[in-house]
């Protein structure tokens, strides 16, 4: 049920994201979802790509620091209150969202969101018990 996300450390300098995306493009890797967290000095670029291993190798070759983290991809109803419903389920059992971001393209009529939880397995279980669709890793990379 878990999805592997890769993250890259970037200094806050112009052209760095362009460079990362350039390296991925040259390796024929497709970025499925992406988010950037930043401070005044540095940023962390998080991505779901269609080939983690290839992406990691390509980036490391160019001296980037690459981390891997498990996240969860969740189907969110594409209508008012869709996200609220999911967050509310988690809130009731005191599961904290470390960060979240949206997927590039929707899956049929539903949106897809990426969540990072500290208590990942527990979050997946709770969501499934409440009828929320958690998308399998393999499916996400090629969604």
């Amino acid at each position, binding site marked *: 049920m878990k999805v592997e*996300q890769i*993250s890259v*450390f*970037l*200094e806050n300098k112009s052209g760095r994201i362009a460079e990362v995306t350039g390296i991925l493009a040259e390796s024929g890797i497709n970025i499925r979802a992406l988010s950037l*967290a*930043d*401070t005044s*000095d*540095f*940023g*962390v670029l*998080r991505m779901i790509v269609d080939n983690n291993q290839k992406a990691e190798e390509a980036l490391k070759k160019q*001296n*980037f*620091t*690459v*981390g891997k*983290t498990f996240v969860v991809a969740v189907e969110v109803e594409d209508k008012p209150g869709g996200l609220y419903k999911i967050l509310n389920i988690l809130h009731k059992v005191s599961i904290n969202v*470390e*960060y979240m971001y949206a997927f590039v393209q929707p899956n049929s009529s539903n949106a897809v969101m990426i969540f*990072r939880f500290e208590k990942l397995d527990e979050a997946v279980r709770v969501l499934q018990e409440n009828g929320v669709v958690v998308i399998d890793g393999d499916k996400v990379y090629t969604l």
Partner: protein
Amino acid sequence: MIFNIEYETMPREALEAIQLRRLQATLNRVYATVPFYQKKFEEAGITPSEIRSLADIQKIPFTTKQDLRDNYPFGMFAVPMDNVVRIHASSGTTGKPTVVGYTARDIGTWSELMARSLSAGGATRGDIIHNAYGYGLFTGGLGVHYGAEKLGASIIPVSGGNTKRQIIIMKDFGPTILTATPSYTLHLAEVAEEMGVSFKDLKFKYGIFGAEPWSESMRQEIENKLKIIAVDIYGLSEVMGPGVAIECHEAKAGLHIYEDHFIPEIINPETGDVLPYGETGELVFTSITKEAFPVIRYRTRDISALNPEPCICGRSHVRMKRVSGRTDDMLIIRGVNVFPSQIESVLMQIDEVEPHYQLVVDRKDNLDTLSVLVEVGEQLFSDEVRNLQNLEKKISKDIKEILGVSAAVKLVEPKTIARSEGKAIRVIDNRKL
């Protein structure tokens, strides 16, 4: 004014006779009371009785900072703790400081030498001394303090920091002599200007500056801004503290070493060979009157040269050239000794792998700033910004706690720290001295 005319102007021959007598007495004493020296002499196959001339000093092995560290904290003391009345310390290379002790007589000697130094720098008993050297474990503050009292001048023990209050004291108390680090002095000048206080209206005549490297151009800047005569003072806690050597305000050309208390040598730092007068090398000191913490051929790592020519001030003691650098990688940041290896050990404790880092030292508004760049490898990396920010804070806090110096920590991408021939460049010192 010469504080101690008899000793400070003593003819060479008489001075050397005193040096030899005092050297022999010191060697006998350390051999009998400090196991470290006894062992070292035995390993070199010599006994103190074999030192029959000043030139024989070359037979004795050197003492290094590492030796002092190995004997932390009191292993190098040559008297029982009962006789130690004061302890000072300076920062060491691995977080542990170098500890030095003084007997009551040592404090008396130090006071005498600081009284001589203040006199050489222009002070008299009628002066008011504004002492902005830090008071505490650092020898600067208390060294000047005791010397000023010995001289009979009035001392204001203002210590470092709280700059605005210092300016008000300067205005209201009318001090005539300033003692401080040169960089702090320039900072004082700037703050004074911001407060609308002109040094023209203050009563300063002379300034005695040291505890960090500075240059002729800094001297000119200080003299112009403060309308004073500025002299260079030298000392290190291992040898005594400030007052080992000082420039006379008459010549301002090299620092007279108080040779009736210390024997200086210049050596080739690679071979250990003693170099003749005039040649540049590493400064080595032997203390010949200290009781609690004698040092025998202590390698200072400071680069200088000795000049035996007579001086216009009348002092007969040899002069050392302004220290032009170090034979190791020690940095002095706001008066605090910093070794890159100390930063490395802080990072090692966090990372547990060899860290890639670089120290960047700048001087902004006449205050030294230290930035530590740390490459983020996989061990340090987290996909959460909060963790990375906490890491920066932790490194900064550990450096402050262990080294006593504030550092701005900046995380950088791997392989961005410049490497020359595969070796990372650990220090970039942008200070223009």
